């Protein structure tokens, strides 16, 4: 491993670390030049934190699935469905509706996992179908309307200020740290990497591949549900605007962090930087009054470029 610093091999080996860090530094400099008020007041920091916290929770779940070499399309849809179930049930059930929302999320994760592990259906296809079902269910239970929750007790879940930052920030960091701990310190985490880097090898080594796949999809949907409930708390309700289109920035933030699409390379710890880059870029571009559609085009281009750069080509022989 002793390669000369900044040599060609070193660059090739560490490209998925170098690009996010350089990109982040370049982004901060560019945003400062474009907008002299960027990050000068504490209020702007809080706004950025609100923008990225729920997003980070959902991105952590997606990272786990991508680490395993699969893909989960249903993250934003499950997020929306959980938020919507919670917002619809909250007036009658109070905080116990959290349980319903989370159970629905877990069921969706279980279906995704079973479709891949038991029925052998490609994960993007299976999750595309379940995401449509989740979107449809959200439409059915809400009637297509925005549902408001005006209870201050619920809003306090995400907006209580602790040490100058809203509590949703701490929720997100706790989820992030737990995910890092799980992937690096537990046998289950190593199994995720094993399945992602070599599924045949993992099976031969005695890893229960079907169980790992199902569990990771369930964790991913659980995190999406939690993100949805916290997001509902932050914006005081649930609306139909979140959806499949949020998949693009979500996916971009995972690959920009340096997690390779082929699985086994990267980690949840990288996703924080990816989320920072994508959300700050998003708010920077919207401060420059750039059209939402153009922002999405930019994220799509970034995601594909990073995906091309981070894929480990020495390992794959057949790419479908």
């Amino acid at each position, binding site marked *: 491993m002793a390669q000369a610093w900044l040599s060609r091999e070193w660059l090739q080996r560490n490209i998925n670390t170098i690009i996010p860090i350089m990109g982040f530094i370049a982004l901060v400099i560019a945003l400062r030049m474009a907008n002299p008020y960027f990050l000068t007041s504490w209020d702007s920091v809080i706004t950025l934190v609100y923008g990225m916290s729920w997003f980070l929770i959902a991105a952590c779940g997606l990272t786990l699935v991508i680490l395993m070499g699969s893909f989960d399309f249903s993250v934003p849809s499950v997020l929306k469905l959980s938020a919507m179930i919670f917002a619809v049930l909250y007036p009658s059930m109070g905080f116990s509706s959290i349980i319903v929302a989370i159970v629905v999320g877990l069921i969706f994760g279980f279906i995704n996992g079973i479709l891949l592990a038991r*029925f052998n259906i490609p994960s993007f296809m299976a999750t595309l179908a379940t995401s449509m079902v989740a979107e449809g269910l959200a439409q059915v239970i809400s009637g297509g309307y925005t549902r408001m929750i005006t209870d201050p007790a619920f809003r306090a879940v995400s907006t209580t200020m602790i040490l100058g930052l809203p509590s949703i920030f701490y929720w997100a960091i706790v989820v992030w740290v737990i995910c890092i701990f799980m992937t690096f310190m537990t046998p289950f985490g190593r199994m995720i990497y094993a399945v992602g880097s070599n599924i045949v090898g993992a099976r031969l080594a005695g890893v229960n591949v079907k169980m790992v796949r199902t569990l990771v999809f369930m964790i991913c949907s659980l995190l999406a549900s939690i993100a949805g409930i916290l997001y509902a708390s932050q914006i005081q309700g649930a609306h139909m605007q979140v959806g499949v289109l949020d998949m693009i920035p979500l996916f971009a933030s995972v690959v920009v962090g340096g997690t390779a699409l082929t699985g086994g390379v990267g980690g949840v710890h990288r996703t924080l930087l990816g989320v920072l880059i994508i959300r700050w870029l998003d708010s920077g571009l919207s401060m420059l009054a750039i059209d939402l559609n153009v922002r999405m085009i930019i994220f799509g281009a970034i995601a594909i470029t990073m995906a091309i750069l981070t894929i480990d080509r020495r390992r794959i022989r057949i790419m479908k």
Partner: protein
Amino acid sequence: MKSEVERLKIGSVIAASIWRLVKVNPAVWAIVALVVIFSALVPDKFLSTSNLVAILKNFAVTSMLAVGPTFVILLGSIDVSYMGIWMFGGALVWLLYPYLGLASIAIYPIFGLLVGLFNGVVHVKAKVPSFILTIAVTAVLAFLTTYVRNISGVLTLIVPAYNFLRESPIPYIPSPFLLALPVIVLALFIMFFTKLGTYFCAIGSNEEGAKLAGINVEKYKILAFTLSGLLTGLGSIAIFVHLGCQTRVDFDPSELVRGLAAIVLGGTPLAGGMGGPHRTLLGALVYVLIFNGLFLLPGVDPNHLKLYVGTLLLGAVIAASRALKGALIA
């Protein structure tokens, strides 16, 4: 006399292939069952002339979204860029019409070809998973279309000069169907009368084996993507006419699912290696019959379309999953 023999041979080939089509395709039985069920439940609505014409129109649209990508699915890869080609191609026609006049419709196949070529080259040379690549391409093209609409300050990207294409020369046969026919014939010709169909199936069922057998796998993969783009571009003209000489300007995932559902319902397995455009045509007919009949039933809310589409796709992929046993799937 040679032509007589050839004609006989072609005739028997067609007869045999029709028999095989019925025997191996559950979609045929599904079509029969759907027609019987809906004719029994809502005979006056389902069997009315206007409804049958609507079925033909929707069949043309759905099959045009699905026929091209079938060639890529034969390889075991996937191509969902049809939505982007259809949407942004229409925007290009609208943009170029003031300069090129009626010839600007030709931009559709050219654009489709270029997008397909791009997909193929990036997928093969840079080894990006085809699904991620093509869905990103679709998203970028769809947002570009919405952006073009937004900056030009019009509500729809409509080109009224092509309205003459909406008049069908044959009564009861809608013009989108007539425009779709040549594309269908082209796809079937490529599948059954050129070596391409066989090569795609060979690559899809065993890529290493195909390589060892001397097939230039990279070339034929790029060719499959290009072909998919070209056919989608040609087929998009029928959809363009169907929508009243305009294109869609906002991205709707249920339209994206339409093409995939038609392919899966037709019975081309996602692992590749078998199937083809003929199955996709049957799948498109199943899809169209299901939704046509469903919305004729009392108490079915069209606002819940996404739920029905999602459930249908879910059921279809589960029903088709027995072909995927033992495959290594990501």
